[in-house]
């Protein structure tokens, strides 16, 4: 270790202390950053922790290596190996106990001066300190010193002196005779004591790894290898050792020491440090020179020399603890996966924790679970607030909420479904209004024609205008303006229907928009109302609306100004008004105001400014087109718009496509974009029973939606949906899956089962006893033999259930209808598929509320527990 390159050592026993050594020793204490002692000298290590310098020791120059005394007492005793081969014991801080005083300052001097490369304290016999030295002729390179040797009480006084001037030699504190001398005629570069036997010392010698046994120093086990640097034993697996050479790490198994069990991928730069993680098995950290990353090798498995040659699975990772180049690092001895990293250049320290690989999973209800290390974290979405609420809620959450608010189930006031969906999605609003108008028109048609015009209504405006015939052209006066205009307007029965579907006019032959205008005014959609009035060629009404709007919106100047501008309308081609309007209209922020002037300033038949203003609702543009485009232009425009809508998956386009194949295409791109199968399913179930439902895509959406409801345990909602679907698509009704047949004749008794509730309804109440028809249902309709008995009440099935104990008669009277419904279900047959015992559903349910075993004596079947899904509670209320 050169003077400039720092190293770190954690205190073996105090979890908050570490030493940094470069040219001097600095003792630091690590603590939370917010603690009271945030003094000036505190160095931030991370967001949470900071280090305080406690002591500095610069007594020992030419430091080459440092080792911390492994025992509790004395606390802060360090051995320092110097460039001249001497090993000095020194201390940091104010440990004044006697044993420490005796030791501090002691020096161990080899016979020949040469660099001390490494120091290792025996973890068990802590008096033994091994030092590895460079080669000097035939001298020994591994010296094991006994720190308690040659200790004389009088030396303690002298030791104090030595602390101040360590160069000074005092025979009483200097030890020159090592306990053991090993590794003759060789150099030692790294050392470590083996944890499985504290008498064994592993040394990285010049060209081999050697194991010395202190009980028999003349012998050694060795293997020739280049990987002799940084030998270190895995603290969790005492036979596993890592060492390195240049850029390559070798992993050894001491039980088969002949060759490395594993070599890790070579790094381009030489390694400087390799360390096993003390808190986790099989995690090795390596550092190369001039690098800001620490590479981690996660050895998931202990290699087994017995049996086959299975290599451990290694997951390589790299972490970037800090931006600058790393000088050294040290694992914290007890904190999980934590290390302190010191930078090479400026001694900046970083407190860093290596996170374990996180595995994660989403639940069906949008909560996230992840596992980090040995811990689990459950992460749930809290009620949207703050910034998060600005970002839209996820569609999964939306669909769940909508399912609970019965979205899609309003079949009368179809438009209300968008309110059920939350009422803040313009596309859904448009969609449900479209479907509402379609339904209205379809109903009218039926009344009027009794023909099968229904399909026409649901086929969308695109198809309606295609069939348009007998279009008449009319030129109408501007009402409120005395000028005769040359604006042609087109009429036909189909166009009229289209306008109705757009919601501009209500039923009746007259094109009367007054009702529509008034409702728009009520909605405070002033600009839109004005535009509609203007398109109806009623300029006075438009101005009136704008004025009204201006007053209502507390003098909205904009509206007044627009009203003023409108009143100046002139149809002279080259007037200043026209010129100004066509240029200034583009600056109007409201698209409706903008299209009003576009309409006024454009030539008849060339209304691109209105038709392609994408901020104007599709229904308004389509209605406009139906009034002002001729038979050639109209289909072309509608086709183009339809294709745009289809491509974008914009639900507003449903007006054009209707519930046709085109509509399914449009919905497909909507689903592709949003995943909202709920809207798709309900929408497709609104039209006439027909072809669209047979489209495999529609079936797929419906299946996916039902699957979602199942996953959310919205089983009641799923059932409601199935009923709703069955009304329109009778083929979707499931076939009966269970048939009850008579024990005696084998015929199905489903007839009596299905008849039972109906018959029951015919009689006033179940209380009527001795009713002739009633007794019949207790027997098989085929052979008149009695049905099996309920295991609990021992009555033949088919008899009505008497009230369960606990329900008072007063309740019964209050809630007659409900009781009645329940009673019908209570009468049902139910039985265990395993033991075949059963009875009235009501009786069985109440039995299993308190019991796990079957009610039939000597039957130990745990009927209810067999069905694990049956134990789940639906999460929606019926």
């Amino acid at each position, binding site marked *: 270790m050169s003077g400039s390159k720092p190293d770190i050592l954690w205190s073996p026993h105090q979890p908050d202390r570490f030493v940094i050594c470069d040219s001097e020793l600095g003792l630091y204490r690590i603590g939370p950053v917010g603690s009271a002692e945030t003094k000036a000298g505190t160095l931030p290590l991370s*967001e949470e922790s900071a280090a305080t310098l406690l002591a500095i020791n610069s007594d020992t120059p030419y430091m080459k290596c440092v080792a911390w005394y492994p025992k509790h007492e004395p606390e802060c005793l360090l051995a320092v190996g110097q460039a001249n081969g001497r090993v000095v014991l020194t201390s940091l801080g104010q440990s004044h106990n006697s044993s420490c005083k005796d030791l501090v300052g002691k020096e161990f001097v080899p016979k020949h001066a040469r660099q001390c490369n490494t120091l290792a304290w025996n973890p068990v016999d802590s008096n033994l300190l091994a030092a590895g030295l460079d080669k000097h002729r035939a001298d020994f390179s591994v010296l094991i010193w006994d720190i308690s040797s040659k200790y004389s009480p009088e030396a303690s006084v002298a030791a104090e002196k030595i602390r101040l001037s360590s160069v000074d030699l005092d025979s009483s504190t200097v030890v020159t005779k090592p306990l053991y001398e090993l590794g003759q005629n060789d150099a030692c570069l790294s050392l470590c004591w083996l944890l499985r036997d504290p008498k064994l010392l592993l040394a990285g010698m010049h060209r081999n790894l050697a194991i010395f046994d202190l009980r028999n120093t003349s012998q050694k086990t060795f293997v020739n290898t280049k990987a002799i640097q940084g030998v270190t034993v895995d603290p969790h697996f005492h036979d596993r050792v890592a060492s390195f050479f240049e850029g390559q790490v070798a992993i050894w198994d001491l039980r088969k020491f002949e060759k490395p069990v594993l070599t890790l991928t070579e790094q381009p730069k030489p390694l400087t440090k390799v360390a096993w993680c003390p808190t986790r098995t099989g995690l090795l950290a390596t550092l190369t020179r001039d690098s800001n990353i620490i590479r981690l090798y996660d050895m*998931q498995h202990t290699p087994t020399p017995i049996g086959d040659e299975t290599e451990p*699975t290694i997951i390589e990772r790299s972490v970037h603890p800090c931006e600058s180049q790393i000088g050294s690092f040290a694992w914290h001895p007890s904190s999980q996966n934590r290390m302190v990293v010191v930078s090479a250049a400026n001694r900046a320290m970083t407190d860093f924790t290596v996170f374990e690989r996180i595995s*994660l999973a989403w639940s*069906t209800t949008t909560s996230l679970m992840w596992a*980090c290390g*040995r811990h689990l*974290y459950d992460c749930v979405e809290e009620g949207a607030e703050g910034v998060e609420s600005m970002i839209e809620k996820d569609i999964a959450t939306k*669909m769940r909420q909508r399912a609970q608010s019965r979205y899609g189930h309003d079949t009368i006031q179809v438009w209300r479904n968008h309110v059920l969906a939350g009422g803040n999605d313009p596309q859904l609003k448009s969609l449900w209004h479209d479907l509402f108008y379609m339904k209205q028109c379809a109903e009218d048609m039926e009344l009027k024609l009794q023909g099968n015009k229904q399909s026409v209504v649901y086929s969308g405006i695109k198809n309606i205008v295609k069939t348009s015939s007998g279009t008449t052209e009319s030129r109408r006066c501007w009402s409120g303006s005395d000028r005769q205009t040359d604006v042609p307007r087109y009429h036909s029965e189909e166009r009229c229907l289209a306008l109705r579907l757009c919601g501009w006019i209500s039923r009746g032959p007259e094109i009367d928009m007054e009702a529509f205008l008034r409702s728009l005014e009520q909605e405070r959609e002033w600009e839109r109302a004005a535009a509609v009035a203007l398109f109806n060629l009623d300029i006075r009404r438009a101005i009136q609306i704008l004025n009204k709007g201006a007053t209502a919106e507390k003098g909205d100047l904009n509206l007044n100004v627009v009203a003023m501008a409108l009143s100046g309308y002139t149809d002279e081609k080259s007037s200043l008004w026209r010129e100004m309007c066509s240029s200034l209209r583009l600056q109007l922020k409201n698209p409706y105001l903008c299209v009003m002037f576009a309409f006024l300033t454009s030539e008849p038949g060339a209304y691109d400014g209105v038709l392609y203003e994408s901020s104007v609702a599709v229904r308004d543009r389509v209605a406009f087109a139906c009034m002002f485009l001729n038979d050639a232009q109209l289909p072309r425009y509608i086709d183009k718009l339809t294709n745009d809508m289809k491509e974008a998956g914009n639900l507003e386009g449903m007006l054009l496509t209707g519930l046709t194949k085109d509509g399914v295409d449009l919905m497909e791109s909507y689903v592709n*974009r949003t995943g909202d199968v709920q809207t798709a399913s309900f929408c497709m179930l609104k039209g006439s029973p027909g072809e669209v439902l047979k489209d495999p895509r529609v079936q797929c959406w419906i299946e996916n939606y039902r699957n979602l409801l199942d996953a959310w345990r919205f089983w009641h909602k799923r059932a409601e949906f199935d009923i709703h679907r069955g009304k329109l698509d009778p083929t979707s009704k499931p076939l009966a899956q269970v048939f009850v047949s008579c024990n005696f004749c084998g015929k199905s008794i489903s007839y009596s089962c299905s008849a039972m509730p109906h018959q029951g309804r015919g009689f006033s109440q179940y209380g009527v006893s001795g009713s002739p028809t009633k007794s019949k249902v207790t027997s098989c309709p085929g052979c008149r033999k009695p049905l099996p008995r309920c295991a609990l009440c021992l009555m033949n099935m088919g008899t009505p259930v008497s009230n369960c104990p606990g329900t008072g008669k007063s309740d019964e009277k209050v809630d007659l209808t409900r009781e009645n419904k329940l009673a019908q279900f209570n009468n049902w047959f139910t039985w265990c598929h395993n033991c075949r015992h059963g009875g009235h559903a009501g009786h069985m349910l109440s039995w299993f509320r308190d019991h796990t075993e079957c009610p039939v004596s000597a039957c130990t079947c745990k009927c209810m527990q067999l069905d694990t899904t049956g134990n789940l509670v639906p999460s929606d209320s019926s």
Partner: protein
Amino acid sequence: MFVARSIAADHKDLIHDVSYDFHGRRMATCSSDQSVKVWDKTENGEWHCTASWKTHSGSVWRVTWAHPEFGQVLASCSFDRTAAVWEEIVGESNDKQRGLSHWIKRTTLVDSRTSVTDVKFAPKHMGLMLTTCSADGVVRIYEAPDVMNLSQWSLQHEISCKLSCSCISWNPSSSRAHPPMFAVGSDDNNVSCGGKVQIYEYNENTRKYSKAETLMTVTDAVHDIAFAPNLGRSFHVLAIATKDVRIFKLVPMRKESTSTGPTMFEVQIVAQFDNHNSQVWRVSWNITSTLLASSGDDGCVRLWKANYMDNWKCTGILKGDGSPLTGLSGQPTAMSTMMGSSVQTSQNAINGMSAGRIGKRAPFAPPLRQLTSPKTYQHPAHY
């Protein structure tokens, strides 16, 4: 806003996988301590461990649930070269009352010669099928012909992928238009070995799985792969955890009815994020495939969400220990979310301009203009 809370897992070593059941009421975890634990959620949302047992003689890599219509069935796979199928049974004692359940091993699948790295059940509509992949590059598909007898599994297909497999994912689409398909990822480090994600498709005529696609652009080791829940979409979305998070879209080309070969796909990369700044370890989709969660070696969990334009952005970051990312480091949570929204708008602008499709795109860009405040209509208002 996502808030995390810690659960005492009590595993003795690293947890490798977490898996929810179909309803999200049960959870299974597996660990290097060779055990699997099953957790049940109480009505008040607490998780309780109801079973814990030793499953393998090595690290358990993955655990997965079968659809509940097959019963309460789990499958696990391990370094010990086996995969196992477990079923919960109703115990003789009153275990249920004590909040404990009993699981027994129905079968051990011993075909692999190396570590079994992933195990997945096929989508429900295919029946009870189980797929494993192993480090020697073999994908095996097993089927239980009789769903009432889980001790019998027959090896139906054995597909060699040539590269060491690390993860597998079934395409969950149940549409008849999409033949059964799965993707397998390889953790092979050698970039020169080519694409690390292979997609296999079932061919009705040959009754075999054949390779439909290799994602040649993914050349680094793949750690996890996940098909998004299809939800009736006409294309497939695949998330890949490699050195970054990647999202691919596979659009099946309309194929002529006469052709019998595998479906051709138009492969588009939808998003690529290196925000983890290191290897990405896992990816997971929510039920509607609108949210993606990823975890990386930076110790963070990130959430991704797409807007209507299919622009994906980060909507949340949490540290692995559940604490929000705060203070001095790179991207604090609040900032990231705000960044997200600003990115969104700017991307909108970019999209609108560069694509030159303002007319098509704009209708949803500023929805507020044509919107009135949401009121409750009490009459069928004209619209």
